[in-house]
């Protein structure tokens, strides 16, 4: 209201009022702006605090780490990221092509099945691989050989690639589905063989999708803690985790600065590469066209698809089910288990609800009051995106132990860490949901005599709620799976399912760990359906 009056009092000043011009003539109410700013601040402060701590750390400490630790960690983290990303591309892209473009039997089912590994948290996957391929695992006991050293670089790379390739697969197949097939036919008319067309037309057009998929995988590897730790491989995240564990905050902050820079560099490179190849692909006329005939190669293709599915979904799930059955038979579903499950649900649920609610003002501001300010706030609230949980946890410890002591050591600290870490998922879903409510609908309601508040309730909310709820469920599942921040921030007596999986698996009590892991996997399948319809 205040801004309403201000804008209307003197027309002459309105026209040149920089505040109004900043918002393209549509300044938001100060109330909305205030809330959005506050939300953004909460999202960004922990990370900014860590970075400041890192930059201000003792130069001697910097020098020591730069000399010894950082080069080794860089080599290990980057080496792993590059290897896993390459593997994911090598597996994900051909699978996407086979499933969308060829006469592979059961293509629609494969599309669903090959996305399945995504719901298995890598640390759970790592546990199943240790059970099967560990030094004295199933393979060794059955055949006298492990076939694969899970504790080696190869082992870590394969395990991580197994559970991250669906990102590449899904993005590539959605891009292939949407790609205008006239391009391929134009290539054929121009005299290119199908193989040449694939290499010279389809693949370059697929490049943005593959880039986005590769970025997701690389960010995932850089941020992963659970799997690499279980497989005894040290990266930046584990180093930061142990530095926090020994409460060497300044070293942790320094390593965090390097890791964040690495992440930002990655995002920047991808952004630049993307800017170089911006295709304005006209949406294809969607004829039902003849798929590529695999012919004699069909058995080979089938073998490839089946093998990938076997090792990335069937094997881990079978192991989990087997050990869950064993565990449940031995009474693993006791009162403690339900206590842990309750802790998980309460913390993840609260985080999901809060993330869902807090996303609303930020997204609403951005969509209905576009301008430099809202764009900046929006970008800032995406800070948690791609940041490892350990760094978010570090920020929380810094902040709460120094400034918000009465909340230190409570579940609130953990919940807020989840919110900061997973808010971007909620923002994205809310953004999508709100973009499906065109402003005209709100204007229509307004022209029919509805105040903005009633418009929000009667029109915007009913239409946006399903999308917002999808965001909430994403955050819920992500928080449920979250490991490093939970390990560092959980209050005494408040272990969650993820923490229990970690503790039990590190003691090799697989029958205790499996039921919790299976429960998390099953819950993760729910939003998968929504994601598949999105891609």
């Amino acid at each position, binding site marked *: 209201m205040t801004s309403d009056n201000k804008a209307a009092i003197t027309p002459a000043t309105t026209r040149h009022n920089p505040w109004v011009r900043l918002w393209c003539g549509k300044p938001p109410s100060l109330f909305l702006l205030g809330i959005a700013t506050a939300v953004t601040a909460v999202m960004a402060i922990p990370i900014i605090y860590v970075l400041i701590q890192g930059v201000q750390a003792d130069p001697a400490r910097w020098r020591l780490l730069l000399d010894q630790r950082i080069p080794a960690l860089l080599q290990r983290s980057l080496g792993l990221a590059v290897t896993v990303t390459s593997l994911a591309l090598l597996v994900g892209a051909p699978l996407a092509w086979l499933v969308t473009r060829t006469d592979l039997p059961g293509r629609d089912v494969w599309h669903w099945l090959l996305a399945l590994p995504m719901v298995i948290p890598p640390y759970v996957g790592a546990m199943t691989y240790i059970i099967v391929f560990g030094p004295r695992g199933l393979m060794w006991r059955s055949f006298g050989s492990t076939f694969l050293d899970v504790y080696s670089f190869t082992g870590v790379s394969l395990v991580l690639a197994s559970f991250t390739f669906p990102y590449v697969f899904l993005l590539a197949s959605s891009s292939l589905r949407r790609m205008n097939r006239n391009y391929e036919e134009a290539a054929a008319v121009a005299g290119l063989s199908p193989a040449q067309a694939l290499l010279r037309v389809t693949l370059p057009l697929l490049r943005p999708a593959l880039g986005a998929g590769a970025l997701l995988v690389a960010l995932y590897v850089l941020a992963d803690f659970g799997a690499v730790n279980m497989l005894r491989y040290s990266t930046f995240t584990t180093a930061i985790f142990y530095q926090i*564990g*020994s409460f*060497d905050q300044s070293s942790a902050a320094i390593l965090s600065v390097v890791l964040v820079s690495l992440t930002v560099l990655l995002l920047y490179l991808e952004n630049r590469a993307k800017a170089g190849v911006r295709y304005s692909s006209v949406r294809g006329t969607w004829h039902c066209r003849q798929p590529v005939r695999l012919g004699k190669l069909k058995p080979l293709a089938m073998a490839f698809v089946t093998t990938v599915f076997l090792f990335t979904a069937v094997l881990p799930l079978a192991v989990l089910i087997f050990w869950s059955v064993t565990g449940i038979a031995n009474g693993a579903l006791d009162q403690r288990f339900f206590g842990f499950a309750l802790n998980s649900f309460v913390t993840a649920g609260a985080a999901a609800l809060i993330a869902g*609610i807090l996303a609303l003002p930020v997204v609403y501001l951005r969509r209905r009051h576009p301008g430099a300010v809202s764009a900046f706030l929006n970008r800032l609230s995406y800070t948690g995106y791609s940041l490892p949980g350990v760094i978010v946890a570090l920020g929380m410890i810094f902040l709460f132990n120094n400034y918000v002591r009465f909340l*230190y050591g409570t579940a*609130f600290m953990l919940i807020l860490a989840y919110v900061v870490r997973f808010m971007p998922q909620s923002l994205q879903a809310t953004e999508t949901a709100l973009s499906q409510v065109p402003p005209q609908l709100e204007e229509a309601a307004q022209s029919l005599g509805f105040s903005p*508040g009633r418009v929000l309730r009667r029109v915007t909310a009913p239409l946006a709620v399903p999308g917002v709820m999808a965001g909430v469920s994403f955050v819920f599942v992500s928080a449920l799976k979250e490991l490093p921040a939970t390990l560092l921030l959980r209050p005494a007596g408040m272990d969650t399912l993820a923490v229990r999986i970690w*503790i039990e698996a*590190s003691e090799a009590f697989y029958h205790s760990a499996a039921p919790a892991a299976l429960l998390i996997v099953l819950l993760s399948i729910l939003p998968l359906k929504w994601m598949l319809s999105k891609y």
Partner: protein
Amino acid sequence: MLKRTMLLLVVTAIVLTALIGCTPRQTNTGKGEVVVYSARNESFVLPLLNSFEQQTGIKVRLLTGNETLVNKILEERNNVQADVFLSNDAGALEYLRLAEALSSNQSPALKIIDETYRADDGSWVGLSARTRVLIYNKDLISEEEMPKTLWELTDPKWSGQFMITRGGNGSMVAHVAALRAVWGDDKTTEWIGAVRKNAGAVVNGHGDIRRSVGAGEYAFGLVNNYYFHQQLSEPTNNNVGAIYPDQGEQGIGAFVNAAGVGLLNGGPNRSNAVALIDFLLQPDQQRAFAYTSMEVPLNPSVESNPIARPISEYTTMAVRLQDIGAMWADAKALIERGGLDLDLGQ
């Protein structure tokens, strides 16, 4: 209207989180609660704490971690969260006492433990002894072939054959501190570097070592003696033996540490904490504890698990546990310099 709707949402969010944030604190029954930080293996601690809960009606909130809890406690000195710290290592407890993170305890129950195994002011008290030994797989190596001193681990001929824990492990820190007291900085640093290089695997916990050695993945490993006892009691993979290192005429002796419990300074539930410590010192609890974990009770009147070798049967290092506390931080720095706190490969 818009404002009111938004406000409603925000208020709901805040109320909700506040409620959840406070939930653990509101579950207090009449007897209150006690917050326990434990660096000890959960499966040994949990039965004791459960029976404490049942007998007293005091709710126990347990946070299981590792020796890094020492740092957490120090970090939280101005905002104390826990009441009691269960440690694997008397050195860590003494270190906390020197940092004034512990509070004196005049409970008469402490007198049952010999005063060499407790702090003068009663702020911490030892519960059980554990000796650093080399567990070995008898299928892979014979007692004669085994190294008899810790220094021998630096010999390249053992390269890739044995396992140790990361230097972050509490027992390891205390052990290094003790070695340093005997060997001095240079020799200790040399030992750390060489051992790290020689070790076939550097792992998080001793449980990994006993299982892997028992299963024959590695020939031997450095553990606390009760891990050897545990592996011995496994139904399979139990053909293991133990070397108590550095015996003999010139030997520096095996390092004996004590697991114990400390009373934190300024904890929120002091009287409950004292009650818990008293409870842990009861002979029944000591016996139950020693039998399950296969450690040696420090209370002489409590019989130990027959599988365990009494301390009197072997030479021990001449380092007082109280002295280790002061060297704790230096030992950690030494480990970090040697790169043993984190496995970064060769």
